[in-house]
């Protein structure tokens, strides 16, 4: 990380040229794609690399003894190493490939939560969480007799850590689940502080980094968390691949999650023993090409530079918030740009978010509208839904201008 130096600006036109989707015209115009927090677009490096992989290196992994099997296994395990380096993890034994971020979080909830939690225990999630780091904990708490506690937030959508004292009085804190960056309003949560608080109580911290890993440099040791989940499709990779990083001693001690092929060491009528890490958590044929594709995406992101991507998105966020502040009837949710990722969620007084998104689509502007799988957060703000613009390395200030132009169209129709 180069926090002491200002990263050099991105060459966005050149980056855009790497993404075939920007060659197409939508409603007659170049696409202003402001929905990368939902899922990102893919560069040729990933798309062409996947085709080449399928054409020249594809077979199942870890079991084929022929040449292709060796190539496929090397590609799959090579991707694991790339993810390890990206996260600053000690060992590839700590990198588990899953289907997506949701499955990574469910893995911890089921494999750790169901066997470790019981009456008297407290599991903490937050009001800002995506449902994938909220519902599994609420569910396993109910199944195991533990208490589920929701850490609240203030009016700006920043976590109210003072509530932790009250939550602690409810029982033994066993685990805190929180996101690094809120997907619906963009808040950057104080994960290091929360993880330190949890560690003092011998509790675990599970971090949903799905909105962070694509956009900034992460280091699992610095975070101080025990588990970190991320997903490939939001970081230029294919869908169908996610990652769980977990501390080795925890993963070793944990019960398995999915059961079947690949995750076993030996099977007999009387007893089955588990394979070593990370295979113990990768039952069945894994998402082979998807993992390889994620590795290619990591190459691309690393080559561009995550610190430069973060700075670029910050610039766009500042600009978007300045522009939206001047737009009639628009209210932006969440904290100031210094404490948010490249996500700007807003409401407009005259129209429902879905109608806003529909009209923006007619202007060639793609945004997400809805509750963003964060209904507790929407309830916190007293609204059913928002319109959300999210930025990535291929976005420009012109995309923000197009958003504003589209919002003028919304006002012309509904105002």
């Amino acid at each position, binding site marked *: 990380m180069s926090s002491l130096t200002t990263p050099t600006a991105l060459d966005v036109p050149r980056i855009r040229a790497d993404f075939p989707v920007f060659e197409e015209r939508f409603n007659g115009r170049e696409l202003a794609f402001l929905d990368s927090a939902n899922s990102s677009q893919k560069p040729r490096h990933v798309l062409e690399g996947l085709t080449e992989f399928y054409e020249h290196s594809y077979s199942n992994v870890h079991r084929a003894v022929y040449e292709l099997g060796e190539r496929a296994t090397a590609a799959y395990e090579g991707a694991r190493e790339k993810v390890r380096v990206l996260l600053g993890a000690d060992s590839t034994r700590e990198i588990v490939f899953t289907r997506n971020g949701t499955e990574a979080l469910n893995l911890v909830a089921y494999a750790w939560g169901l066997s470790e939690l019981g009456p008297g225990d407290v599991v903490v999630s937050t009001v800002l969480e995506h449902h994938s780091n909220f519902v599994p904990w609420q569910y396993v708490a109910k199944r195991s007799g533990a208490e589920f506690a929701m850490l609240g937030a203030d009016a700006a959508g920043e976590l109210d850590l003072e509530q932790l004292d009250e939550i602690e009085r409810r029982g033994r804190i066993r685990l805190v689940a929180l996101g690094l960056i809120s997907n619906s309003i963009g808040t950057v949560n104080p994960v290091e502080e929360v993880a330190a608080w949890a560690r003092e109580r011998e509790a675990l911290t599970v971090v949903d980094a799905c909105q962070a890993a694509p956009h900034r440099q992460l280091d699992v040791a610095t975070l101080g968390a025990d588990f970190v989940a991320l997903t490939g499709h939001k970081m230029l990779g294919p869908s169908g691949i996610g990652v769980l990083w977990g501390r080795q001693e925890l993963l070793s001690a944990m019960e398995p999650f999915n059961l079947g092929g690949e995750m076993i060491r030996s099977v007999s009528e009387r007893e089955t023993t588990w394979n070593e890490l990370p295979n113990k958590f990768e039952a069945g044929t894994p998402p082979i090409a998807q993992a390889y594709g994620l590795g290619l995406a990591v190459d691309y992101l690393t080559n561009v530079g995550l610190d430069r991507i973060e700075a670029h998105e910050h610039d766009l966020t500042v600009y978007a918030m300045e522009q939206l502040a001047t737009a009639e009837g628009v209210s932006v949710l969440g904290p100031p740009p210094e404490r948010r990722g490249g996500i700007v969620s807003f409401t407009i007084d005259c*129209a429902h978010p879905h109608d806003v998104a529909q009209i923006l689509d007619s202007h060639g502007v793609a945004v997400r509208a809805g509750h963003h799988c964060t209904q507790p957060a929407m309830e916190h703000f007293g609204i*059913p839904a928002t319109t959300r613009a999210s930025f990535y390395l291929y976005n420009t200030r012109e995309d923000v201008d197009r958003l504003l132009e589209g919002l003028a*169209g919304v006002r012309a129709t509904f105002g």
Partner: protein
Amino acid sequence: MSDLYRELILDHYKNPRNHGELDPCDAHAQGQNPLCGDDVSITMNFSGDDVSEIRFTGRGCAISQAAASMLMELVEGKTVAEVAELPKEELLDEIGVPLAKNPARLKCALLSLGVVKLALHRARGTALPEEWAGFEER
């Protein structure tokens, strides 16, 4: 401008017909579109075999709320059997905007019709079409 938002839609959205709640009522149902968070609640009264009065409340996008308003006008005064068999095409014709290439918004448009069919199903035992069977699962 998107052609979804023609004048009639905006008029029903801004000035919804039969908006409110009948209390007491002979039939009631509520439904959501989990994708959008659209929510529609419908109450109705019967006079013999006719749907004599019908009201709706709800929140959501212009399409879902305008469609509910239009449906009220379509349904009031019809017989229970007619409403239970009312084809969705009739409501879509009324809405009159191109939703075919937009399946997500089609769900918004048809939410209120599903809720009406559910209310009749519960109060009068009429068939609940497969399309809305999910409303009974909770």
